[in-house]
């Protein structure tokens, strides 16, 4: 331990003991400094004598850190991705806690704010939507998209970015929302058609807003605060919630065997308090409070999911269904979109080209070929019932001795990959033929 830290430890206990709080609280978080610093400062002001230590890690590193440091763990885990909390919960790395704060409803949109089992608490809501770079759109003469379906349009070919659902718990929820809202087969068709317009599939959530901010591509599928805080920082970007969106909470949880449990609990309470919720309105943070009364202090155009029922309410989100096929959906998306993006976009490019030609010169034979091509490129290699089947979905989950699976994950993945490669090549050939026929 370094001298400075020793000195602080020696002085602080007096003040902290008065409140029954430990002299420090350590937080592992994936949130940016813009969010953590105001909270740390405000908390230290409200609880003089307790020092907040923030450790920034990306979500994957944070989960690994908590898993590996059980002998002397950090006190709190503070992040967006609900899947990370679920993983920690399953591994018994979180402590259940019941917040004392009153005035926070059970749900935001159709999603429970706190974990029903009590292992993590939602402190802010966020919705997924479409972010776009206005300069980029103007230069490319593109209209601003409003709905997911807009992103299917050929005009957006090569202009759209997304992060892989396997890499971003929030993108996963968007994918799952589309699948639940439109149904399995139709949902995948939408995802694959949007996939045809993708410029890139990023491996981290922040890669998408980064690329839209710098204008590498014009449109990104991102969580609201990425876009809104970029706008607040002066970037020529804007954001829209499509009708079909899920509002999901960002969370905090107390780590099992936390060394400073009282201070950790106090921090959770602080996040949920009136004062804590107001900090979310800061333009650099710009997240949706979970305390409905806080919206009274927000600017006029601030989205309010508790009032605006269209936000996140169109889909009745089935959390059990989502959980049953969580890993399978991620792996499937990677197989048929992320890792075969080149083949997928080439197939769609050929289809778009043929359609342009067909529009100028209608031709029944070409139309039939194109319909077949579209069917090929939008087909998903596994049915909805199979995807829910524990025998299959289980192959993608953590391997356990008591849960043997008949077929290994690798075998499914190889099957899907082969399907995607073949189907996209066939679709391209069909589309090229259609273009020939319409000549």
């Amino acid at each position, binding site marked *: 331990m370094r001298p400075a830290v020793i000195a602080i430890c020696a002085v602080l206990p007096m003040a902290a003991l008065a409140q029954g709080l430990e002299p420090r609280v350590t937080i592992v978080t994936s949130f940016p400094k813009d969010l953590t610093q105001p909270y740390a400062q405000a908390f230290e002001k409200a609880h003089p004598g307790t020092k907040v230590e923030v450790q*920034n890690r990306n979500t994957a590193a944070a989960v690994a850190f908590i898993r590996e*440091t059980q002998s002397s763990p950090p006190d709190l885990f503070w992040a967006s991705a609900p899947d990370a909390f679920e*993983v920690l919960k399953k591994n018994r790395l979180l402590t259940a806690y019941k917040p004392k704060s009153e005035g926070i409803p059970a749900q935001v949109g159709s999603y429970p704010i706190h974990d029903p089992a009590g292992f993590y608490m939602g402190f802010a809501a966020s919705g997924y939507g479409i972010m776009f770079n206005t300069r980029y759109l103007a230069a490319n003469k593109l209209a601003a998209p409003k709905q997911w379906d807009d992103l299917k349009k050929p005009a957006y070919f090569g202009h759209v970015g997304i992060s892989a659902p396997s890499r971003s718990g929030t993108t996963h929820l968007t994918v799952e929302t589309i699948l639940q809202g439109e149904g399995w087969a139709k949902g995948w068709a939408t995802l694959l058609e949007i996939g045809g317009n993708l410029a*890139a599939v990023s491996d981290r959530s922040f890669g998408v807003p980064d690329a839209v*901010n*710098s*204008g590498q591509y014009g449109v990104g599928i991102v969580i609201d605060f990425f876009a809104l805080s970029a706008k607040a*920082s002066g970037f020529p970007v804007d954001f829209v919630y499509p009708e079909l969106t899920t509002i999901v909470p960002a969370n905090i949880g107390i780590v099992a065997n936390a060394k400073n449990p009282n201070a950790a609990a106090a921090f959770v309470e602080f996040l949920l308090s009136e004062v804590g919720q107001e900090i979310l309105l800061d333009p650099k943070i710009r997240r949706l409070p979970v305390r409905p009364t806080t919206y009274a202090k927000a600017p006029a155009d601030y989205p309010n999911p508790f009032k605006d029922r269209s936000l996140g309410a169109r889909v009745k989100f089935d959390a059990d269904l989502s959980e049953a096929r969580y890993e399978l959906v991620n792996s499937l998306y990677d197989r048929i979109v992320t890792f075969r993006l080149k083949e997928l976009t080439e197939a769609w490019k050929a289809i778009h080209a043929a359609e342009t030609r067909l529009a100028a010169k209608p031709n029944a034979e070409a139309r039939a070929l194109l319909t077949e091509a579209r069917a090929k490129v939008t087909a998903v290699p596994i049915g909805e019932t199979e995807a829910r089947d524990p025998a299959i979905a289980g192959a993608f*989950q953590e391997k356990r001795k008591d849960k043997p699976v008949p077929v290994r994950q690798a075998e499914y993945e190889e099957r899907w*990959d082969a399907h995607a490669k073949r189907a996209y090549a066939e679709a391209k050939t069909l589309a090229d033929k259609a273009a020939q026929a319409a000549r």
Partner: protein
Amino acid sequence: MTAAVASGAAGTLGRRASPGQIAVGLAVALFLALFLVLPVARVMVAAIEGPDGYTLDHFGDFARTALFREAFANSIYVAFMAVVLATLIAVPLAYLLARFRFRGAALIQTLGVIPLVMPPFVGAVAMQLVFGRNGSVNLLLNEWFGFRIPFMEGLNGVIFVEGLHYFPFILLNLSAALSNIDASMEEAAQNLGASGWTLARRIVLPLALPGYVAGAALVFVKVFDDLGTPLLLNATNLLAPQAYLRITSIGLDDPLGYVIATVMVAFSLAAVAASALVLRGRDFSTVQRGGGGLGQRELTAGRRIAAWVFISLVLLLVLSPHIGLLLLSLGTVWSFSVLPDAFTLAHYGAVFGQSAHYLGNTVLYCALAAALDVVLGTAIAYLVLRTDLPGRRWLDAVAMIPIAVPGVVLGIGMLRTFHGINLPGSDQPLATFWGMLIVAYAVRRLPYALRACTAALQQLHISLEEAAESLGAGKLATLRRIVVPLMAGGILAGFVTSFATAAVELSETLLLVTREADAPASYGIYVYMQSPAGRGPGAALGVIAVVVVAVATYFSHRLAEIDRAKRGKLGR
């Protein structure tokens, strides 16, 4: 007066393992076992764990999966082509530097290292802003000529970026090798009538081969295993990203990720071994140690201009990401435009206000890690090339493993192995003690230093040591007075590469740092880069880190030059 003595059976001295050598060998082995093998093994064992005991099924899955076979082939192709590109850049530069008297050679040497210092994330953003599909270059091309060049798309993009990024490995090692060639070798050849191309082909290039091969092998293996660039370009059909994406999937201990990592380690070691085979059976060492490099000539005025034009073009190309970084750090908003909208110094103000301690930590950690690396590298190279210590080749092979082990695997392994142990006299776990970062950096960058030190020792003829010993010098004195000073160029090259690359290491850093006050600059950059408002300050911190590394590199080259000049004088 000189000869490249081709002695198949090298000298007889020092061929039996002495107690001192055994002790050094054991110490190195212990270090590697404790901080590399054990932590990595504790994570990688997942590759062979099945539902009932151990299994090799996962390796079968690897072979059966078309995606992985494709990724494997792509990785080899990309690595090979990157070596070609890096060679095209580095060899002329190294030759110019070694052959001709140049003002500012140290400057070029220094600028040649800078590409290695590419801060994570912020560097990626800067690269995209310069070379991306709507980066400055393409926006200008599109405006003037109506087309774009896909610098950063697909496998060719990876080759382009990697070649630019890693050519310093060849430049550094080749320069060190060239400066070790004795001028008198060349003079002898000239006396025999060789000149120009013959001279280069028959004398200079063969003698510099160990340096080139060391550098090229590093580039090959490094590109083969590199993660940052493919992720930056979203090129996922390569082995390293395939492994990484699986290993870092939250909460899933996916065996295939570790299988891929194992395959990568095996292939990388094979590549290094193959590069050693290229050199086997030849002797590159020279006896004469007076010359201090090739005879340097003055360039004619015309050629000097041509040389400067070439060098300027290369430097402009390789430094453009850093120019992008500089602009990013000085710009307000930079979005879909050739240059930022406006300029400001506010980002630097923010960094100096809050983040100065990061830089001190970086210099401290990386300098210590690099020092540890060259000590280990020299020790291993000496044991391998100069002794018959049993198992010495294993030390060399094991020390090369980190080049192919993803940082996150080593980071998790360190936590798993050392978190339960507390720092003596406190309740702080050893794993999160800042000293562990130094060890982790040293382990991760050891291969660079090791290859550089090995190449340097390969050029040194054993008869010099034999002469010293026959004059009564002990082993230690010989090492201290003869071997290490004569290897100085290679050791320096190793130190610089280790130092520069450790300065921007992120994946281990993110796992092992627990206190803001102990964090190095790469962590600071990461923290800034998590929000759009942090792009400027993140870039500013990146620029400062680059400058710090550049200054350190420049001074080490100045020192080396002074040393070389001194030796040159003594020899003539």
